[in-house]
Every structure is written in C-alpha cells, then in structure tokens.
C-alpha cells in the first residue's frame, strides 16, 4: 500500500475533503483523526482541505458575542484587564460590515437559485434584503422597487416580540450611525413609507438591521436594544 498509488492518494484526498466539510459520520471522523495523529500525510491532507474550504465562511454576517466570552478568555489566560476588547457598538463592528458585504453571496449560496430565479425574469429593478437572526436563518424579507416610495416587510420565519417592545428597522449607512426607517409590528408585516425613492433612500446603506426597542421605538434616535436581525442590501435586476 503506497500513497503514491493514485487510487490511494485520491481516497485520502476524498476523506480529508469530507472531514473538512464535516460530512463524515462521527465514527469515521474519529478514525480519520486517529490516523492523522499517527500519520503526517493524513494530517497534511486534512489541513489542506480545512484551509481550502474555510474562505467560504467569509460570507456569514458577523454577530457580536456576549462580553462574557472575552472576560472568560482573559481570566483563563491570566491576561491584564484591557480597554474592553469589544467596546465598539454593534453597528460599527468591522466584522459585521465584512460579513454583510459578502452576505449576498452567502444568501444566494444557501438558498441555491430558488430565490434568484423567478426574480431574474422581472423587468423592474428590485431591492431585496433578507434579515437573518443569530442562527442565520432568514426571518424577515424587506423589498422595494428602486423607484418605489415604500418598503414592504414580510416575515418569512417565526417572530417573537414581547408585548411591551417594538421592532425597529434601521438603515446602516457606511461610517455613520444607523438611521431609523420605521417600526415593524409583531406580525412581521409592514409597509414603511420612504421620504424618497427606495434606490435613493437606501443609497450608501449596504445593510439593514432590526433592533428590539421600547414600545413605540427607540427614544434616542439610535438603536438602544439588542440587534436581532441583519441583512445586506441586494440589488436584483
């Protein structure tokens, strides 16, 4: 048995690929790990596939973890207390922006062509934003004709809003504070009027977000509650 034999090399490559993708059964995964510990060729093949596939994850929109995660890391490693490692507000998080810039890809990728196919046949230019929560499952669909003066919001997943709270929709202009677009009722259905045609109203805002606010909306004009859903603004033709 020699790895230079083409059939063996191909077998190893296929196993390493499936390991990195994560589709191997638990038992097969363990077996391959055992082999990798004893065999540098196997370990290298796995590493190669890990690195090859990892860039796909770039498209996942960022979600700011709880501050307790950094605190736990800091304590476990005995690090000094530092000017908080996560003090930036969520809307200026670098990762959020990097994630959203590429979310269009992740979206098309995750939904396959099912979302894009019918739209492609429409003559009008549409703006479509899929807002997804922590589990990255689509929850709300926001859409508008570029020339239209309102946004249509529709729930595509389950929404739970406490009775004394409201959902508020924000545009996230690059490098600026979020701008409120309006409230979305607990039913997840809303028609939000815009001051200008949608294409202009959302210009410079590559993403939208929904935050949980006191009933009637944020009292400060900026998001005060947690961000529940975010999504990148996609132009469909």
């Amino acid at each position, binding site marked *: 048995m020699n790895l230079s034999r083409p059939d063996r090399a191909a077998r190893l490559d296929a196993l390493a690929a499936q390991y990195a993708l*994560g589709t191997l059964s638990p038992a097969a995964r363990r077996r391959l790990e055992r082999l990798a510990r004893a065999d540098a060729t196997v370990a290298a093949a796995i590493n190669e596939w890990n690195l090859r596939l990892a*860039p*796909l994850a*770039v498209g*996942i929109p960022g979600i700011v973890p*709880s501050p307790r995660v950094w605190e736990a890391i800091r304590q476990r490693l005995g690090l000094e207390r530092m000017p908080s490692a996560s003090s930036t507000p969520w809307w200026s998080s670098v990762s959020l922006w990097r994630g959203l810039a590429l979310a269009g890809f992740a979206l098309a990728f995750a939904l*396959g062509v099912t979302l894009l196919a019918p739209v492609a046949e429409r003559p009008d230019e549409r703006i479509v934003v899929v807002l997804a929560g922590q589990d990255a499952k689509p929850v709300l669909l926001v859409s508008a004709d570029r020339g239209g003066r309102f946004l249509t919001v529709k729930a595509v997943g389950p929404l739970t809003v406490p009775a004394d709270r409201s959902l508020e929709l924000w545009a996230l202009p690059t490098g600026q504070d979020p701008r409120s677009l309006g409230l979305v009722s607990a039913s997840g259905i809303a028609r939000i009027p815009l001051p200008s045609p949608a294409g202009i109203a959302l210009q410079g805002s590559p993403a939208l977000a929904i935050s949980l606010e006191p009933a009637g909306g944020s009292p400060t004009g900026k998001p005060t509650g947690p961000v529940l859903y975010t999504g990148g603004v996609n132009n469909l033709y």
Partner: protein
Amino acid sequence: MASPQSLDGNAALADLLARTALADQRAFAEIYRRTSSHLYAVALRILGEPAAAEEVLQEAFVSVWHHAGGYTAAKSQPQTWLTSIVRNRCLDRLRRRALDTVTLTRDNDEETEIDLPAEGPSAVDLLIAGAEAHSVRACVETLEGGQKQAIALAFFQGLTHAELSRQLGEPLGTVKSWVRRGLERLKECLERGGYAR
C-alpha cells in the same frame, strides 16, 4: 470582492498574530475585537446554540493565544486560519454530541476500512495560498444544483451525509456522490485557477 481594505485587514491580522506569538496581550485583544463576531457567527451557525458557540469561541481563542506561532502567512490568510480552527472545534463538538447521545447508527460510510501508510507531508501550500475567498466562491458557483446545495448545507449547518440525506429527501448514495463530486470539482477548479477574478 477582495477589496484592498480586506487585504490590508489580512496583513494587519497577520502582524497581530505574529505579535501574539510573542505574548503581546494588546495584539491578542485586537485580534479578538476584529474577528470575534465573524467567528462567533460561524460557530453559532454550525452549533445553533449560543452557549455552545460561546464555549467554542472561548476555546478557540485560548488555543490561538497558545499557538499563534503556528500560523504561517505563506499557507493561508489569517482569517482563513482562524475560521478553520473554529469550524473544526464546532464539528468536533457536534460529532461528540452525536456519539454521546445516540446509539450509533452506522451510516455505512465507505471510509470504514482505512489503512494509510506514513509518508512525507504533501506540499500543496502554494495552491492554498491562492485559494482565498473570491476564488473558492467563484468555483462553488460552477457546481451543479445538488452538489452546491449539499455542500452548502454541510458547510454552513454542519450536517453529516446521513443528515443531508434526510434533509434533502434524497438517498444516502446520491447525497454522498454529490458531496464527493462537488468537492472534487471544487478542487479541480481551484487548481486550474479557472475562475474569473
């Protein structure tokens, strides 16, 4: 899509990792600040539970602190390296969970009998260096529907062959061959460099 900004970001991250390897706490905190929300989202997506995702993130960063010196800029971009650490920990946890809770139903993975001999490490580093986000994505675009869907579900939701088969309502054999062929094609495409830049 690979904007100059993201390239700068990667250069900066590589520098921060190098400083972390020298036990620079501020550099380490900065890596966390820059990458934790993306990595957390990756973990959450696969594990589906905030508590588990937080634990993985914590473990991953503890490991980064100890092994930052193991990052080699020639092999991959820093973001890629960090992501693969987090993904692997997630998959380990998912599979361990499966082993702990379920009496193992064999899904007859063909890889049951593997006996691979030891040999020197294969050198495909150059290829990896080129296989960054835009090219992988362009190559994914070339996959057929079933292949693309199976690979996307596996990658983003951490499904096994058996789970994919249930979720997609297709026979196990079909799903396995989608995954296998899809991965083969992905690799071929990356090696050819046959993607539009």
